[in-house]
């Protein structure tokens, strides 16, 4: 988009550049934010006086592409027809844009699924995208980890990231998915990160720390992205804190922390939000996204197949559970969060507690782990809850008495400001992902801009932006899609060392069920990848 555009008179929220609701004009040229220029040179001037201006939203943890997502679509065509939880790739891009979101990261793709994920992401319009590569249960990676050869591990991971065109490293239930697939046993997995997996010496701790070091050595824009052990299990706070302690001093991102902040009282779930947030508040190397649960239908889709097995035992729902070559597990199961369920009500309350206990909003990101906790379409409702203590108290009345009596929400009167919301939905996730050109409106940033008409009802306000610009072009106006843009696919830049390539080829020859040439991103897609460096 080469035209020059001026957005005149908006109330700008750009916390990355210290702008907190001041009124000033935004200048756009060539799809980027530029310094002020003479109005006579402008192709278009849009008067947005009194309106709220923010950078385009950044969803750093969602499930929107790849065979797992496709399988969920096939499993639940009724949900696809409703269009809330599940959509085609095209509608996903359109609905994100309609909410003012312009960047999204698919949080879990197995190496084998990378090629398809790239095809799908290419067909998801209006978003700049990338995906995280599942490595915490990858058989070859695990075998290499046991050799304690840091260089070989680094070269292998670099080759995997390069070959698949991935954005970063994801670790799910470290080691326990592979262990459960291989040996069966208790699907709850380990209760300490120092428990050996199977008969070997490998432990969740060694997986976490060594892969964190690799991410550091490779200078990846985003640190390791961790889904900790024992997701959803009462009392899991202990292993979550062990995980964080093990990673102390190394950059790391703990994802959907709401599912990992549970205490236990006589076997029943209690909130451990305070214990978790106390740790996060005092450790600047830790960042997190919340994975807020909202009442209503959801679909669990995860690499954590033992967890899915447990959920299937609990619910008896029609489900799918797979292993993907020797790379990862995969499970899906439809689910419903009910406000009358004590467990679900706790999950809802714990998520909000975490947001409200966070001292530094730059390190706590809004997510629903779409579609696991809820659809991304629930973001406006969550924003409204964070901005309005009275609304939270009203919602609390729906919940079972046990939760009402014990949750910290009764005392937490904090209300997020528009600046805070901009941080947890834009500036914060962009910074955590290492996307310096996103989540801000400084000179040189991508001109991904959302303009809202201010309203008392924050849910309505955030549900229907007045304008959404993608690379300087209007894509949404008054809730209507005006145009569609392809968006880019972002990937980290890792060197492809000969050792890594050789290791991968050898593995494919011995274990793969398809040819190495068919593995990873196609040459055509590689040409289109946008490299992101730290």
């Amino acid at each position, binding site marked *: 988009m080469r035209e020059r555009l001026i957005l005149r008179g908006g109330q700008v929220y750009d916390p990355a550049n210290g702008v907190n609701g001041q009124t000033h004009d935004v200048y756009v040229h060539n799809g980027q934010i530029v310094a002020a220029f003479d109005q006579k040179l402008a192709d278009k001037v849009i008067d947005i006086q009194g309106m709220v201006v923010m950078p385009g939203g950044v969803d750093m943890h969602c499930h929107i592409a790849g065979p797992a997502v496709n399988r969920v679509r096939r499993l639940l065509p009724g949900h696809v027809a409703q269009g809330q939880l599940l959509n085609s790739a095209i509608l996903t891009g359109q609905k994100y844009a309609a909410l003012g979101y312009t960047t999204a990261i698919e949080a879990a793709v197995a190496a084998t699924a990378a090629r398809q994920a790239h095809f799908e992401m290419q067909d998801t319009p209006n978003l700049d995208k990338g995906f995280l590569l599942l490595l915490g249960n990858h058989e070859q990676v695990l075998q290499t980890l046991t050799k304690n050869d840091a260089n070989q591990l680094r070269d292998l991971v670099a080759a995997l990231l390069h070959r698949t065109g991935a954005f970063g490293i994801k670790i799910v239930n470290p080691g326990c998915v592979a262990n459960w697939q291989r040996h069966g046993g208790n699907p709850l997995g380990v209760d300490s990160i120092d428990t050996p997996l199977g008969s070997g010496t490998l432990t969740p701790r060694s997986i976490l720390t060594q892969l964190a070091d690799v991410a550091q050595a490779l200078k990846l824009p985003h640190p390791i992205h961790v889904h900790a052990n024992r997701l959803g299990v009462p009392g899991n706070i202990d292993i979550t804190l062990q995980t964080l302690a093990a990673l102390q001093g190394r950059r790391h991102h703990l994802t959907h922390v709401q599912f990992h902040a549970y205490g236990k009282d006589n076997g029943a779930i209690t909130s451990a939000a305070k214990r978790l947030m106390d740790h996060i508040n005092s450790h600047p190397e830790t960042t997190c996204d919340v994975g807020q649960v909202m009442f209503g239908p959801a679909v669990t889709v995860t690499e954590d197949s033992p967890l899915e097995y447990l959920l299937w035992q609990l619910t008896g729902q029609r489900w799918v559970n797979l*292993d993907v070559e020797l790379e990862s597990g995969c499970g899906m199961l439809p689910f419903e969060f009910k406000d009358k369920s004590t467990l679900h009500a706790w999950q809802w309350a714990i998520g909000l507690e975490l947001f409200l206990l966070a001292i530094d909003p730059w390190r706590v990101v809004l997510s629903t782990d779409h579609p696991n906790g809820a659809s991304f379409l629930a973001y406006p409702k969550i924003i409204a809850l964070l901005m309005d203590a009275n609304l939270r108290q009203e919602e609390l009345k729906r919940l079972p008495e046990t939760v009402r009596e014990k949750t910290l929400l009764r005392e937490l009167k904090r209300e997020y400001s528009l600046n805070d919301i901009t941080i947890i939905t834009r500036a914060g996730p962009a910074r955590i992902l290492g996307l310096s050109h996103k989540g801000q409106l400084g000179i040189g940033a991508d001109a991904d801009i959302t303009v809202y008409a201010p309203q008392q009802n924050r849910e309505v306000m955030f549900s229907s932006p007045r304008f959404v610009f993608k690379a300087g072009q209007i894509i949404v106006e008054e809730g209507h899609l005006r145009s569609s843009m392809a968006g880019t696919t972002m990937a980290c830049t890792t060197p492809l060392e000969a050792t890594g390539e050789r290791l991968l080829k050898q593995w494919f020859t011995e274990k793969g069920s398809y040819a190495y040439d068919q593995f990873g991103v196609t040459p055509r897609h590689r040409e289109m990848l946008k490299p992101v460096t730290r």
Partner: protein
Amino acid sequence: MQKLPGFTGRGWSHGKAIPQKNALTLARQLLQDSKAPGILGLTLVTVEAVTAAVKLAQQLSVWLSPWPPDPIRFWGHHAPDLALSRAELEQAADLVLYLGFENGVDAVQPRHRQRHLSRGPGLQRRQMDIRWSPSERYQNTIHLRLHLERQAPLTTELKKVAEAIISSRCVQLFFNAQLAQDDPHYVEQWQHLAAHQRKHRRMGVSLLGSTGKARTITETLTWLTGYPGPLHFSTNMIRYLPHVGEVDQLIQLNALDTILWLGTRPTHAVKNVKQIVIAADPPHEVEVALEVPGLHPSLDAHLVRGDGVMLRLAGINPGQADPMAQLLTSLMEGQP
């Protein structure tokens, strides 16, 4: 050369070559004149071709469906109930049956045994390769099922299979995925048999050795539209038929007056329907026939009745872009 059931034509002959431009014009005209066209097939096609087919279906507001049914898709209806876990296979499966592996399972998937059939300690396991000709498949399966359910009499050969099943506690059946694609109803018969046998013993049915090409259709259609097909694009909302077999009913009820076949040949006779076939196997060809009474099911056959026309598209360079996608894009030109 083999005539299919329902074939009423008097004979086969090759089509007549005409210039590419004329063939495309004729194909466009057929689509324009049609009141109820449909786009079927989509086997052996690329992601780009499926994408172009979706665009054409949207433009024409018509039915779009994989046909014949993709075995993975077909499988989806039964898989949750009929799959054995890997642990069950390893620790309990004492009989493994192979169906449709004429050259042996190793020719299809060389590492199959290491990948799927490690064996738990002390487990005795038998294997049987069942190779029935197309003409006896259905009958044999029915007889076998009747025997297992009601002790109906059996031939000696079938008795061996029946006895092996009866004397086992856990049976795993591997179906050649190619056979499943060619003859999904045969798979369905075995699925029924397995479902019934589950009253007495564990029995699992799995596909083996898919080419992966069928998967392209299912995956691509799903991410593009939200559904694996069949789909109808007549309104803003995509209509989805949950069972792929319903497309068969559309054909039988004469709900379609023109069919554009993509990447496949019609698998059975379709009367009173104008047809256009874009074949996937190189060299890429367009066949335009006023009537296609029946075709050989083998993908490498290329037969049209003499009143059709056939064209080799030598002018399209496969290295540049997907030729089928190019053809579909050409067909879009001039459509309303």
